[in-house]
């Protein structure tokens, strides 16, 4: 299929004006799959900002999607504060051990220095290089993990969620130190030219209650959003898993765009918060993008567009979460092609008829 008339930057600007567009924005959230585009191992990204940038830029050029996100895993900030991360040879890293074992350790933690600690300097280098290479044509974002989620990696998820009920003050103390570090990192990300892109996985109602999100998630996210707004940038907030009961609270953080998981419904989100936020989502990264056929990808994209193309604040067709490393290129191409095929303006009647058929 022919490539696009507009660059991503032009496309988003046109969205803001209400059109005309060539197609809806589309973001298959490519993380470590970028390693496959360059033919390198995922573990080679560790400590190598240039390689991360090269891979992410190459992946953007290969697929032509609308946002680059410099991301390898959610643990970078927690690692920089002492959590141990395991790096398999050629798969996404995972948490080996939290930084502290109990609330007693919280006082020992200090906010990250983004220019010194862990792999943060390398990620900043990647952001700077990617922004310099293609920042004029495509938004380049830097992954920023939310304070509550970083807190869960610092003390262990089970520990943290027990403390939300048993010792809320300790949870706030931990979120505070994580938030201070996140603010410093956000500032450094902005200095590279990139925009921080917020993910707060553990805030999902798959894990904590809406009341707990409002107490331990939202206030810290709001501080980050306010800070980024203060630097003149719009913010996307992603929370994995179920989120329907907290969509309004997520919008209350001030985020401009909510990225929702396939465990949530775009149509319901549109009804609830579509006047306040752009929506991004939500083709299943595992069942459809990794394991599905190109025909299933196409059908899933059409379902997303049917549900939310008329979202008052706009829609970004996206995967519900970061794509698995081994997601077939054909499925990523199929996602973009499906969006190109639908084009703009969206023929809603045609999509509805497909549903009826």
């Amino acid at each position: 299929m022919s490539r696009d008339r507009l660059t991503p930057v032009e496309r988003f600007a046109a969205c803001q004006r209400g059109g005309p567009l060539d197609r809806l924005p589309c973001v298959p959230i490519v993380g470590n799959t970028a390693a496959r585009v360059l033919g390198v191992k995922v573990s080679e990204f560790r400590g190598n900002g240039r390689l991360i940038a090269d891979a992410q830029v190459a992946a953007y050029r290969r697929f032509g999607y609308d946002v680059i996100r410099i991301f390898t895993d959610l643990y970078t900030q927690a690692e920089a504060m002492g959590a141990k991360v395991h790096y398999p040879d050629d798969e996404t890293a995972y948490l080996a051990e939290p930084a502290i074992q109990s609330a007693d350790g919280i006082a020992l933690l200090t906010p990250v220095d983004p220019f010194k600690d862990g792999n943060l300097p390398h990620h900043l280098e990647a952001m700077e290089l990617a922004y310099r290479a293609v920042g004029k044509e495509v938004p380049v974002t830097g992954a920023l993990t939310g304070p509550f989620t970083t807190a869960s990696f610092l003390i262990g998820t089970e520990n943290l969620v027990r403390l939300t009920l048993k010792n809320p003050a300790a949870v706030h103390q931990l979120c505070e130190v994580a938030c201070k570090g996140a603010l410093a990192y956000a500032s450094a990300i902005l200095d590279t030219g990139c925009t921080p892109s917020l993910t707060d996985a553990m805030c999902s109602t798959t894990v904590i209650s809406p009341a707990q999100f409002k107490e331990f998630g939202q206030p810290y996210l709001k501080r980050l959003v306010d800070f980024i707004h203060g630097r003149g940038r719009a913010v996307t907030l992603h929370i994995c898993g179920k989120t329907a009961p907290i969509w309004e609270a997520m919008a209350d953080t001030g985020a401009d765009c909510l990225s929702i998981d396939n465990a949530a419904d775009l149509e319901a989100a549109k009804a609830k918060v579509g006047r306040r936020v752009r929506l991004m989502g939500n083709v299943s990264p595992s069942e459809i993008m990794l394991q599905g056929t190109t025909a299933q990808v196409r059908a899933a994209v059409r379902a997303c567009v049917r549900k939310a193309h008329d979202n008052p604040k706009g829609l970004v067709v996206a995967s519900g979460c970061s794509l698995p490393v081994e997601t077939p290129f054909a499925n990523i191409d199929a996602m973009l092609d499906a969006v190109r095929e639908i084009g703009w303006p969206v023929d809603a009647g045609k999509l509805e008829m497909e549903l009826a058929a």
Partner: protein
Amino acid sequence: MSNQTDSLFRDLSDAVVGMDEKRTRQLSIQAVEQGVDALSAIEHGLVEGMNRAGKLFETEEYFIPELLLCSDAMYAGLDILRPHLKHEENQVRHKIVIGVVEGDTHDIGKNLVKIMLEASGFDIVDLGRDIPPQRFVDEAIQAKASVIALSTLMTTTMDGMAEVIQLLNKANVRGQFKVIVGGGPISQSFATRIGADGYAAGAPAAVKLVKQLIGEAA
């Protein structure tokens, strides 16, 4: 059953649902001191409370923090009451080997499934997280388990689930075990494709699934 024991069971159940570990412990001691049948106190008190907590979890009135604190209370009571079970009552009918597949250390989902299965009277062999496929097979054979329960949150480890089933086939023991899978990226179609016996979307559903599968096996 006297009214007095009835009300003790209800108090135990309430203490578990109320996430009150201390009170659960006190009531369990009281049950022992009053010579109340330990099995009944567990089934009609602790487990009843944990099942109520599971229902609240299903209806999204409770979330993971609440469910974990309920389980802390249940386990505190079990520690006190279990030594007072009559010997034959300690003979558990079905063993379940459970763990998170190698390459993943997210274990909260696995732990919730374990808690709810334990509350339903199953004997659990918890291998923990980041477990190589071969170990599931070895442990299941050694424990004479009825069920192998595999959990993951990461797509990278999904192949490990398929490998467990291939290893069971290779060892000619596949028929001895029901294999169930669950976790974020898992779906019924994935479970079917790798030849698992079942998929459950959450902890309470996993209990229903195991009961149904074991019923089939019996």
